[in-house]
């Protein structure tokens, strides 16, 4: 069976399968997924309905059938022979491909301390079921890692009246991807909601009664969740001799170092115009890279240049970040009815924006900011800071210029 083969049926792999059809490809498309379900969305996993973990499918089985996509579930790729254009699956069958997409995603980084096996991960539907089936009012959970996943989980657990401790090795929560101003506001909100933070402390051991920190103190917990980031799933590519680093290395068109093999989503580290490779971990990136990779597999030669964007919902607050804010950027603050926005300028040019507010109240402004960034404008700083000057007005004048 030649044709297109996609390894990984998460957001990226599944999106790519459909995008191949949208690009006009009419040959066989085979989508291989390790999990036992139909492809599903991960963001809803932390948003339980009552006590039930949501299984929000990316597509119904009928949609896969209608698009002529062969979906092989519960299987992974055991070996890739890029020279022969073939991939062997975990059940022994061999698929020959015309083009291959590696959408293997990322897996949670694991702790290495004594008792590390006691800590639960939070990435898959099964992980979510394992966590939420064991918690309830009055129970206590220690979350190791104060990144977006750990903090989102903390907010959901507080909503269920679960006692929460968050342990973080860095001096502050959310230090990696969230602008400092909004990281501080979210931290304060968590503290006000009763989350206890143990920052600047490592984990020495995990036992029956909780987590022992490197300073010798014990954080008592009925359940321990590890949320210390993810590692790209590069083992298959590495064993096949493809170029890897912090991810499967690709050129700007998402082509790997092997002929006819592409990579997209959390596993892909994409060559940048200024040199180096960047790997993104977000829902939208998984989709946009999948779409670019699929079009290129079908014969195009598009470079991937979508602006990074992610959101995080914690309590009733919504955070959105577009672009990559850097410490060296000039920051312009703008208040909004629903919260606050920050704009980030590099040498006068708008390159990133972020907002924190009630629910999705700032989504519209962030979307307009994305369009302003795409327009390549160098806005007037007073106008950017002035809430009475609509961003849509700025966009229209930028487009008319």
């Amino acid at each position: 069976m030649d044709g297109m083969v996609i390894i990984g049926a998460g957001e990226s792999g599944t999106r790519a399968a459909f995008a191949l059809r949208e690009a006009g490809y009419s040959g066989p498309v085979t989508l291989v997924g390790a999990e036992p379900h139909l492809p599903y969305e991960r963001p809803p996993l932390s948003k339980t309905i009552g006590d039930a973990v949501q299984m929000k499918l990316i597509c119904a089985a009928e949609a896969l059938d209608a698009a002529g996509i062969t979906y092989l579930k519960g299987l992974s790729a055991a070996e890739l022979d890029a020279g022969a254009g073939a991939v062997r699956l975990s059940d022994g069958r061999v698929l020959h491909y015309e083009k291959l997409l590696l959408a293997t995603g990322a897996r949670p980084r694991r702790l290495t301390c004594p008792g590390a096996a006691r800590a639960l991960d939070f990435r898959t539907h099964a992980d979510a079921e394992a966590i939420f089936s064991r918690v309830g009012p009055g129970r206590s959970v220690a979350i190791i890692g104060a990144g977006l996943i750990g903090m989102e989980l903390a907010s959901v657990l507080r909503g269920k009246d679960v006692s929460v401790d968050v342990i973080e090795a860095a001096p502050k929560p959310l230090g990696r991807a969230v602008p400092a101003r909004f990281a501080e506001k979210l931290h304060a909100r968590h503290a006000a909601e009763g989350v206890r933070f143990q920052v600047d402390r490592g984990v020495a051991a995990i036992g029956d009664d909780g987590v022992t920190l490197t300073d010798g103190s014990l954080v008592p917990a009925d359940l321990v969740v590890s949320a210390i980031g993810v590692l790209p799933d590069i083992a298959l590519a590495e064993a096949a001799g493809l170029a890897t680093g912090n991810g499967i290395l690709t050129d700007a068109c998402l082509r790997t170092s092997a002929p006819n093999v592409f990579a997209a989503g959390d596993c892909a580290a994409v060559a940048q115009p200024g040199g180096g490779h960047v790997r993104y971990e977000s829902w939208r990136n998984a989709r946009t890279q999948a779409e670019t990779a699929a079009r290129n597999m079908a014969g195009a030669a598009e470079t991937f240049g979508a602006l990074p964007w992610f959101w995080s919902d914690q309590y009733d607050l919504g955070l959105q970040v577009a672009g990559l804010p850097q410490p060296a950027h000039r920051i312009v603050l703008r208040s909004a009815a629903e919260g606050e926005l920050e704009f980030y300028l590099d040498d006068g040019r708008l390159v990133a924006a972020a907002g924190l507010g009630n629910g999705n109240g700032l989504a519209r402004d962030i979307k307009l900011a994305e369009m302003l960034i795409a327009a390549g404008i160098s806005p007037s700083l007073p106008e950017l800071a002035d809430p009475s000057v609509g961003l849509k007005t700025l966009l229209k004048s930028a487009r008319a210029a």
Partner: protein
Amino acid sequence: MIWVSAGKLDDIEQEGAIRFDHGGRTYAIYRGPDDSVYCTAGLCTHEAIHLADGLVMNFEVECPKHSGAFDYRTGEAIRLPACENLKTYPAEVIDGEVRVALA
């Protein structure tokens, strides 16, 4: 057809939308670039997000969460991940007041 008052046209930004709740349901009411008004079901068909928080440009509304988009005049889903059309309801402006027919 039962017409319900949904407030003043002046309270909706041109090329904007408001959320309108009535009878236990939520709707989105839009004011187009030409001051025409339209009404659709209030929640995105992809993941039940309030569309009134989304960006309105011309005759399109974009879901604030996943960037699915609809033509709010017809309810047609025009960008993934939204693939199911929105229900639409008649809307009109009488003496500066927006009225929608919800039944």
